[in-house]
């Protein structure tokens, strides 16, 4: 197990180096520089441009900037945002709880709905339920998130008035020293109605964010279950006269879940990408929306720091999934 762990950790090092290069290079490959965007239609004289570029340190050779970036990382310094002038790490940590909260609820919905859907579709293979649910999954997978989010807002908030349009909680409630996890903060505040308001605000964005992972998980569960159901040991269990519930629910499901867990882990990356759009539509103050704003401003430190931190989170989650996989499936651990 230790060797397995060490092996997994060893993978992280080159991945991390790769990510620093990509994160650093990506935003600089985009045309347009932050000083020009700041000046806007007014224009900026070449002298003033040079002066500001120098002030920001962007006049130095690119590799010097890169090594300084990496060197600072080791001291926990991700640089300061060009627009707000605040440390990138602080900005990230302020906004990250909102993204985690939304992401966790979304992945929970995706799993709790996706797995049963896939399993039932597999059991009732070829039935109307199978065809409808897998058709729906395909539609969900191909859904443009922006459009889907707006559609839900117009229908549920605009026409029916069931859910709030956007934001994290009713403006009435305000927790200046909160943790940033609104569900927790609203509960801890003890104010009546706060928690319900936070939940109501979470419903639409989490459904939107859950849609694609749910579709993927449902399809993956179905095919994994189908494969397991045709295994000899399932047939044996059935022949023994075990109840269908025990056959499917205990023997088949446990084995079918193994690839599904990997899929869920991989969906974390997809979730981050989805969060960018979902947060923008629902005015959700998370890192997705922050990244979009930073990219459009060519806020180099925020983009490179943000990308690195997001990639770090995805890497850690994938590592945990790998480890979990090892726990569930001893064959992998002993390889």
């Amino acid at each position, binding site marked *: 197990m230790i060797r397995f762990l060490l092996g997994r950790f060893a993978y992280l090092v080159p991945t991390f180096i790769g990510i620093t290069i990509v994160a650093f290079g990506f935003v600089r490959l985009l045309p347009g520089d932050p000083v020009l965007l700041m000046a806007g*239609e007014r*224009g900026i*004289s070449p002298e003033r441009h040079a002066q500001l570029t120098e002030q920001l340190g962007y006049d130095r050779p690119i590799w010097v900037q890169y090594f300084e970036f990496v060197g600072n990382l080791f001291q926990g310094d991700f640089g300061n945002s060009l627009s707000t002038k605040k440390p990138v790490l602080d900005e990230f940590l302020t906004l990250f709880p909102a993204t985690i909260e939304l992401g966790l609820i979304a992945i929970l919905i995706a799993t709790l709905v996706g797995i049963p859907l896939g399993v039932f579709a597999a059991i009732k293979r070829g039935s109307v339920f199978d065809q409808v649910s897998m058709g729906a999954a395909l539609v969900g997978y191909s859904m443009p998130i922006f459009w889907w989010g*707006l559609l839900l807002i117009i229908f549920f908030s605009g026409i029916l008035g069931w859910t709030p*349009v956007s*934001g994290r909680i009713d403006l009435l409630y305000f927790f200046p020293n909160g943790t940033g996890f609104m569900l927790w903060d609203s509960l801890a505040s003890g104010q009546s109605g706060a928690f319900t308001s936070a939940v109501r605000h979470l419903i639409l964005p989490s459904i939107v964010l859950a849609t694609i992972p749910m579709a993927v998980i449902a399809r993956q569960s179905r095919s994994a279950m189908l494969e397991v159901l045709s295994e000899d040991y399932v047939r044996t269990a059935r022949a023994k006269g075990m109840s269908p519930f025990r056959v499917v629910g205990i023997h088949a499901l446990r084995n079918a879940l193994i690839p599904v867990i990997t899929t869920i882990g991989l969906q974390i990356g997809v979730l981050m990408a989805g969060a960018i759009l979902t947060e923008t539509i629902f005015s959700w103050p998370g890192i997705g929306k922050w990244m979009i704003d930073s990219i459009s401003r060519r806020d180099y430190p925020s983009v490179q720091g943000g990308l690195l931190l997001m990639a770090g989170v995805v890497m850690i989650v994938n590592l945990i999934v790998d480890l979990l996989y090892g726990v569930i499936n001893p064959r992998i651990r002993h390889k």
Partner: protein
Amino acid sequence: MKLAHLLAASSLALMAGAAAQAKTLVYCSEGSPEGFDAAPYTAGTTLDASGKTVYNRLVEFDLGTTNVVPSLAESYEVSEDGLEYTFKLRPGVKFHTTDYFTPTRDMNADDVIFSFNRQGDESSPWHQYIAGISYEYYSGMEMPAVIKEIQKVDDLTVKFVLTRPEAPFLANLAMSFASIVSKEYADQLEAAGTMEDLNNAPIGTGPFKFVAYQKDAVIRYQAHDDYWKGREKIDDLVFAITTDPAVRMQKLQAGECHIMPYPAPADLEALKADENLTVMEQAGLNVAYLAYNTTVAPFDKPEVRKALNMAMNKQAIVDAVFQGTGQLAKNPIPPTMWSYNDAVVDTTYDPEAAKQMLADAGVSDLSMEIWAMPVQRPYMPNARRTAEMLQEDFSKIGVNVEIVSYEWGEYLAKSTDPARKGAVILGWTGDNGDPDNFLAVLLGCAATGDGGANRAQWCNEEFDALIQKAKVTSDQAERTKLYEEAQVIFKDQNPWATLGHSTVFMPMSKKVTGYVMDPLGTHNFTGVDIAE
């Protein structure tokens, strides 16, 4: 038991009473502020959240107009030679009292001098109180070159000594970057080693005091109880940051906010049809134009530029591109600005005459580039569509157009290249309501060259002499004449095709009363009330 019930009931009633009394105005703002110090930023979104709420200036724009009126200065005097501006400060002006600052004195000359020196004096510790900060408006409005020194005459009198007469100086002082901050607060922050809080937790004299900012989500303000103009009618002001215009509209319709800026043009019909809403509108202080490069042949010939302008069906462009949210432009300044010369006659749409004119100028088989901005701007909803329509119009007179575009930052930079080929679609939104802010910034000789905003590279001596003279003349009637004359030369020379002026819309709940639209495009909530 009974007593407990009674107590509970009465405290509930009290709470309900308090809740009913507190009037909260919710504004669905379009983006996050970069900070709360009004001096280092130029984005309207940022300045709405600081300059217009938290701060005042020596002089301000009278709300709803571009007239400059006294504010923190009770009165001011300009010396005969136009080189000295003496401001008498209003006595008894209180800075905000918050949980992070309690002022011990009223606003005075020290605050005024500090507010400007921190921007102009590079040796001040406040000049770079945050690494990488710069004062773009202060330098953009040429303050370092204009201000020689600022003297404290007495506690309530400040004198600005200028290096040259500068007529737009007062209008510049009414801009957000010239907001007056508390020196006492700054001193406290400096002593505590938390200078950056000047940008996080602002203290001003304005109508609203800052309460809290939850990044990218909500900004909260409270009415300033001791506001020198009298307390606001609303108790709380909340900016609910909502970047998507379609979502802002949904929030407004659902009653989650009272007022929103920048509706999507396509949503205007629905907003106007909503019986719970009012949609205010006003001509924007802006212009969209097509700038030829007047230093490159054949566009160096005024008759060629005129011929091309005559080939454009501008009305069709305004109809298609602005979709009822704009009007034709004939001058480089908008009609709401003083000195707008309504007597100027626009070039008439006449493709046949245009064709002949090109032939007379010896131009045939002309191929040119038209640059289309990749982004939507307040003055131009769709540059690509505009370019396509121009392409079609020009093809009718035998001019072949290639439409090019670059990433926005590149576009802004490359379009200032003196050797640029082709004509550029761009525009401008006024900063301070002074015609100089359009005519000199966009068409003056000093603005030509690499990095300058004169994208036509047009340097006309006669025109430039007029606007230079207007700049050092303090009499507005005389300035008006000079600018009117300059507009005639502009039209005669056609360095641009003036395309349009866009209209600004402000949808709000019918409950909102007293909102006044600012021609300068900022959003102010002074004097606003909410009907029960």
